[in-house]
């Protein structure tokens, strides 16, 4: 394995990446909730 300089792709820090993933999960849950309500 090569030395890792930890240049983070797309975002400035890994913390922003983690926030994005968690935010996406929350958005999915909201979408699923509305989806369930709409079709039930």
């Amino acid at each position, binding site marked *: *394995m*090569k*030395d*890792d300089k*930890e*240049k*983070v*792709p797309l975002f400035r820090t*890994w913390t922003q*990446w*983690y926030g994005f*993933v*968690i935010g*996406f*999960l929350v958005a*999915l*849950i909201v979408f*699923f*909730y509305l*989806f*369930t309500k*709409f*079709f*039930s």
Partner: protein
Amino acid sequence: MTLTDWIVIAITLIGIVLYGLYRSRTTKNLEGYFLSNRSLPWYMVLLSIMGTQASAITFLSGPGQAYADGMRFVQYYFGLPLAMVVICITFVPIFNRLKVLTAYEFLESRFDTKTRFLTSFLFLLQRALSTGISIYAPSIILSSLFGWDIFWTNIIMGGCLVIYTVSGGAKAVAYTQQIQLVIIFAAMFLAGYMVVHLMPEGVSFVDALHVGGKLERLNVITSGTNENGFNWNDRYNIWSGIIGGFFLALSYFGTDQSQVGRYLTAQNNTESRLGLLMNGLVKIPMQFFILLIGVLVFAFYQFNAAPLSFNTSLVDDARVSPYRDSVSLLQGRYDSVNKVKGQTAMAFARAEKNGNSDSVQILSRQLRELNGQTEGYRSQFKAISARVSSKDTNDTNYVFLAFVKQHLPAGLKGLLIAIIFLAAWGSIAAALNSLASSTVVDFHQRLAGEDQPINEYHLSKWHTLGWGIFCILVAQFANKLGQSLIEAVNVLGSLFYGVILGIFLVAFYVKRVKGTATFIAALIMELFVVVLFFNERIPFMKFLPDISFLWMNAIGAIGLVLLALLLQQFRGVSQWDEKSGSKMPSGKRQPA
């Protein structure tokens, strides 16, 4: 099956095997065979992680699960993105810094040999059993299609798989998974399109969703509560999904060598992290889509008659049994109700389209009642089947397959059957690779001392072959499980994953707890989790509450951490660590 289907299957499967063999040329040492010399970019890591998790069971049982129980199964994956984040923060940097070949190597440097052996043993036990089920899943396809005995079908299916896996290695596994997933996604998308295309004229995708929704199949979010409050025995709800699913995913991706081995193939921390985080983004939508296909199939069978059992061989058996007159009578009544159901579903779709809410309410109630009647007839048939056949009467795993077999056009039918093989091969290949790596690195190498790298390479191939044979033997008993295969695999994992995760949580976060306390806590908690799950079958344990399997992950992990903390307080336990020490004896392979 037409000649076109057979040609599509043959070209797809032979093509993948040849591609795997072409890509199997790698350095003849352990790091080359098990970790592809840690050379892969993030997108290869992502596809390998996804290909390992998404087995044939995912594509066989997933739509069937949605058909029978709705889409709430997707909540099971809600904890996965959170687990990806935790793994990226804690697990990845440590595993990569230590340059371990298996996750369990780390436990020896942190604790002691016995804890490493125990954890590796628990992994081998559950992974081998799960892999056996994963061989059985595609085998039922062959069994159903050709009427072959499942015993021989397992041997043929597993035999082909073992040859391919032994020849491959991690590099071949990753590269074939890449091609496999592209074909799988394309074929599943086509299948989804075809279900909608085959709906009666005038029934659109949205109409089909309305039918599924009114019949409680679009229950994506459920709270798990009833009139008595929260139901701990409810399998899939938002809370069990986020909390239980988090612990399960953390354990699976953080401590199961079949997954750890995938992201250890990455070039560096960044590539490992990107692969895992992208998996956290795409896994839930992918599973949603697979389950949605199941709902569409369910809607399709509101307009068209579903068979008495999706396992058509059961119907054939019953028709030549002493109960054939009862079956004919049942079939007649079932067909009559299905005819009315089809007309009601059409009327419902029209009312929904015209915005006639009163009619929608009346017709959806009628549709629910008719579904209750057809399900009643299907249950009666299951009762007859249980008397005349030794085969499993649960047809959840056959729903999607039966639809593909009966309704899809030539060529696409062959492609969908091929993708089930591809999905199976992808996950089983990674599992056999990890079983062999854990056996060679954690047991053989550790007990026998350092061997020549070239011998270890050949030894690894023999171990892969041995595990392949063992998993085929397990597959022979998988038909006794009698439930959805996707659930069976998850239940099995949950019995072990919590404890394995607990060991790693202590290792990472509770520095003052040593090996002996962790080892004893792991033994006690593993026994407790098994007893808790099977409490109803153990006479003097019936007082324990009924808890759904997803919670076992959290109970096992948190319970182990607390118990290990408690045990560490005992003087005898801490003295044992001081006496025995926790370092590897010289001459053995040390993590860097």
